[in-house]
């Protein structure tokens, strides 16, 4: 019996010829990523060394990445002090993959890693962030862990106690309708599988629709795989992956592609034909509460958010800019745009997208997580309704447990900002 792509990656990372779902392994880690929560990782890391008489030392400083994104620039003195402590640690341990609060090379961790060429096909990537699943878009096995587990990885260089997950194969066929895309596909899939349908599983994406999809789109579907509970989403690397790594991420060295065997053992296969799929909306307060847009169209909204590690890339901002160009955000509605990285922000400036958005009344903010996790700018008032291209709509997610968050694609978000209510972008704003 053959292996799935994740089984193959884990076999390589443990030096074994073959592994299968259910095995427990200790794979070496190629990249270990944290954001501001590195402050907690550092605390736990130093705790591990206590009483051992050993000097605390990160196993391989070149494989540790730390990116400030969740609360940038700091929203409080407490955060600023945490960030300061992390900077000191980074300097002492000579961690080079560090992205501070900067307009040029700063941004959201799940955008910085791919665009900087830090993630390669076949890598084992761990991150102290649940959306680390994103990096499966480049053919890596990438999964979220807690801060203490990261401290253990920093110490040992491998992840202890990793169970090889079973894999669900998702086969996607058909061409998207205009104004419909990867976000609608993944919302539909989460609605089909449920919020726990892939818990402890990997989702491996296949099919002609995926083959034609850009890396940006693949990042969307892998990013949100965790919303079905998945350990990771993964798109086996192909010509598009190599193209992205060469052209966008500037990778010059050998790219070693790991592919699943033709006779790999999947737990089950789900087939989706997207050719008639309408825009999808995830309604409060769970991401699997997904409806086609005509069932929620007309709902009044007070805030629109375009950005996040899910939909803050250049194609997302381009779609939003095209939708609002020459129009105006409805009065009574606020439109907030936050590009996923400094590089994307600069390109959006060069292309004139930022001007289109600002002229229409949008507020364009600095790259980072922004209002996505309800800690920083863009909190919601009591009972307010937000429509957002982010990935979570849990109660309280945008900072107010009495508010409601609906999730959608950038095209839907922008058309709705102009209308002041949830609007199908195909009907014209």
């Amino acid at each position, binding site marked *: 019996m053959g292996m799935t792509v994740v089984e193959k990656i884990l076999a390589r990372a443990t030096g074994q010829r073959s592994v299968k779902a259910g095995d427990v392994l200790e794979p070496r880690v190629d990249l270990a990523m944290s954001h501001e929560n590195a402050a907690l990782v550092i605390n736990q890391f130093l705790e591990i060394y206590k009483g051992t008489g050993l000097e605390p030392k990160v196993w391989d400083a070149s494989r540790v990445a730390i990116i400030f994104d969740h609360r940038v620039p700091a929203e409080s003195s407490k955060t600023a002090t945490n960030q300061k402590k992390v900077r000191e640690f980074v300097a002492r341990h000579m961690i080079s993959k560090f992205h501070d609060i900067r307009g040029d090379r700063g941004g959201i961790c799940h955008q910085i890693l791919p665009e900087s060429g830090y993630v390669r096909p076949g890598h084992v990537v761990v991150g102290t962030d649940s959306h680390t699943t994103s990096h499966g878009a480049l053919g890596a096995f990438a999964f979220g862990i807690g801060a203490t587990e990261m401290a253990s990885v920093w110490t040992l260089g491998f992840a*202890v106690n990793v*169970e090889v997950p079973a894999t669900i194969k998702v086969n996607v066929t058909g061409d998207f309708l205009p104004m419909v895309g990867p976000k609608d596909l993944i919302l539909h899939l989460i609605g089909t599988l449920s919020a726990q349908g892939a818990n402890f599983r990997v989702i491996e994406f296949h099919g002609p629709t995926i083959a034609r999809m850009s890396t940006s789109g693949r990042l969307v579907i892998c990013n949100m795989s965790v919303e079905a509970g998945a350990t990771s989403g993964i798109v086996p690397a192909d010509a598009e992956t190599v193209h992205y790594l060469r052209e966008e991420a500037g990778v010059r060295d050998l790219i070693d592609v790991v592919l699943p065997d033709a006779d790999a053992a999947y737990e089950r296969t789900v087939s989706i034909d997207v050719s008639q799929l309408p825009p999808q909306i995830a309604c409060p307060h769970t991401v699997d509460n997904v409806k086609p847009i005509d069932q929620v169209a007309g709902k009044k909204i007070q805030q629109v958010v375009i950005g996040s590690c899910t939909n803050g890339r250049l194609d997302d901002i381009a779609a939003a800019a095209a939708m609002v160009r020459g129009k105006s955000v409805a009065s009574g509605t606020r439109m907030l745009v936050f590009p996923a990285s400094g590089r994307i922000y600069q390109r959006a400036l060069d292309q004139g997208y930022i001007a289109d958005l600002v002229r229409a009344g949008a507020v364009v903010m600095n790259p980072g997580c922004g209002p996505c996790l309800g800690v920083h700018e863009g909190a919601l008032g009591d009972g307010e309704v937000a429509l957002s291209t982010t990935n979570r709509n849990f109660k309280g*997610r945008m900072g107010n447990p009495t508010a409601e968050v609906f999730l959608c694609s950038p095209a839907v978000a922008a058309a709705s900002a102009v209308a002041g209510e949830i609007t199908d972008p195909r009907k014209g704003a």
Partner: protein
Amino acid sequence: MAKVVYAVGDDISTDVIYPGRFMATVLPTETPQFAFADDAVFNNQLKNRQIPPGSVIAAGKNFGCGSSREQAVSTLKGHELIIVARSVARIFMQNAVNLGLRLIVVPDLEASLGDEIECEEDRVVNRTSGRNFATERLPSARQAIVDAGGLIPYTRKRLVERSASPR
């Protein structure tokens, strides 16, 4: 015997257990004050120490879904609560094992607020309803971390072993 002091349904996310706006607070000694912060009644009971250690939160499926924030575990551990859930999201389960939060998976659990629960080796007994429910065993690899007292002592042991016999 332990009392169910809080009963919740399916898909309770870490945003509900520990809202994102308190994430600047990271130390396990400081996180307990924000447990279920958006539910003022329960949060106050916890803060005012009206909930005895060893009390039970009964939950539905997919408890702890969403963000990987470890505060969602340390905040509950700080009050020595026991989580009895029909199922638990992967990262939350791993964090619970790593930090030593007591977590029992009971696929058919039926328990309501105020019920008296007995947690035994292979089953949970609801003394109030008189019904028994089988528990799911932790995979052995996770049990090894629990037995070591959590991931910090477990990794410390591995570190010391390694430095004693360099590869």
